[in-house]
């Protein structure tokens, strides 16, 4: 229960930060709120707001934001067996399958408390996130320059906090992160905003570099990422950049 409250408070504050950031980036208050109601997944919302603020390609920005929501599909896969919902309830339940509800549900010792934790957290967060988005969006106009309060660093800090546990999970993660950073930074001066982040998704290939075990097992597999060394992957990406820029 206390976990739930802590999570709720954290989400409330970041909802406020999102609302303020979105309006600062150039979304209207209505657009900021609509995104919270419909998308209800913070990282994607911050990402789209960032692209709008950067005056960049909305198509690529939208794709990037949606791709970022792909992790929720994985949570759904994991939770389906715990929640066991059908019909209309499943349609509604799907909307609150996010980082926080998954974290709470998977931290419970048994299925009953996992379900309780999931739905309590989900309903509370949906209410909190949307209410604080509205407050943040309306408050942003009165704040003045958001950089004065360091609000411009909130977006990256949110992403960093979400990334942290994954980054420390293994070497492949660190390799993917490094490759993604290089691709995104190299592409930023060349391409419309939003596109570099999309391109950086190809850095995922760096996570499939050969491990000794796999190479020994199936050396001839044509799909084996062992055939795509790190440098080759980056080179391939550069090629895509040139094509995308024309």
């Amino acid at each position, binding site marked *: 229960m206390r976990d739930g409250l802590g999570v709720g408070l954290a989400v409330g504050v970041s909802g406020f930060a999102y609302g303020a950031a979105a309006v600062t980036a150039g979304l*209207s208050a209505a657009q900021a709120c609509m995104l919270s109601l419909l998308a209800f997944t913070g990282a994607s919302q911050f990402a789209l707001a960032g692209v709008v603020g950067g005056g960049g390609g909305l198509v690529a920005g939208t794709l990037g934001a949606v791709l970022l929501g792909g992790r929720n599909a994985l949570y759904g896969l994991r939770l389906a067996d715990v929640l066991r919902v059908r019909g209309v309830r499943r349609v509604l339940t799907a909307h609150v399958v996010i980082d926080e509800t998954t974290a709470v549900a998977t931290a419970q010792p048994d299925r009953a408390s996992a379900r309780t934790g999931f739905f309590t957290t989900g309903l509370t967060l949906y209410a909190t996130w949307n209410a604080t988005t509205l407050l943040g969006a309306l408050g942003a106009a009165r704040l003045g320059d958001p950089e004065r309060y*360091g609000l411009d660093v*909130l977006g*990256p800090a949110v992403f960093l906090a979400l990334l942290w546990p994954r980054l420390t999970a293994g070497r492949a993660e660190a390799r993917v992160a490094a490759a993604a950073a290089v691709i995104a930074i190299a592409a930023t001066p060349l391409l419309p905003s939003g596109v570099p982040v999309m391109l950086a998704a190809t850095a995922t290939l760096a996570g499939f570099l050969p491990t000794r075990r796999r190479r020994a097992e199936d050396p001839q597999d044509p799909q084996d990422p062992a055939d795509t060394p790190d440098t080759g992957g980056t080179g391939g990406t550069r090629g895509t950049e040139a094509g995308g820029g024309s």
Partner: protein
Amino acid sequence: MNVWIAVIVTGLGCYALKFGGLVMPQRILDDPRVRRFTELVPVALLTALIAVQTLAADGPSLELDAPRLAGLGAAVGALLLRAPFLVVLAVAAAVAAGLRLAGL
């Protein structure tokens, strides 16, 4: 593309992924490569977002904004000390705001 369209498509796309995960047959996770891919894509995207939003100036160029970098550095420090989510955000914003107040 109009911002409204981007907002609505992002919303629908994000919902579709959540729903898709719930209804997908569990056995697709049996393939370790699929599982690995779903774990690694967020790592790539989040890192790219951090890099771009930290270094991007207005328009398609890079800039080193000292207070913003310091704020993010402070967030790293807070995470290393296992600070809770909220504290990480507060520390990052406070450091960036403090340095700007100091005229950096």
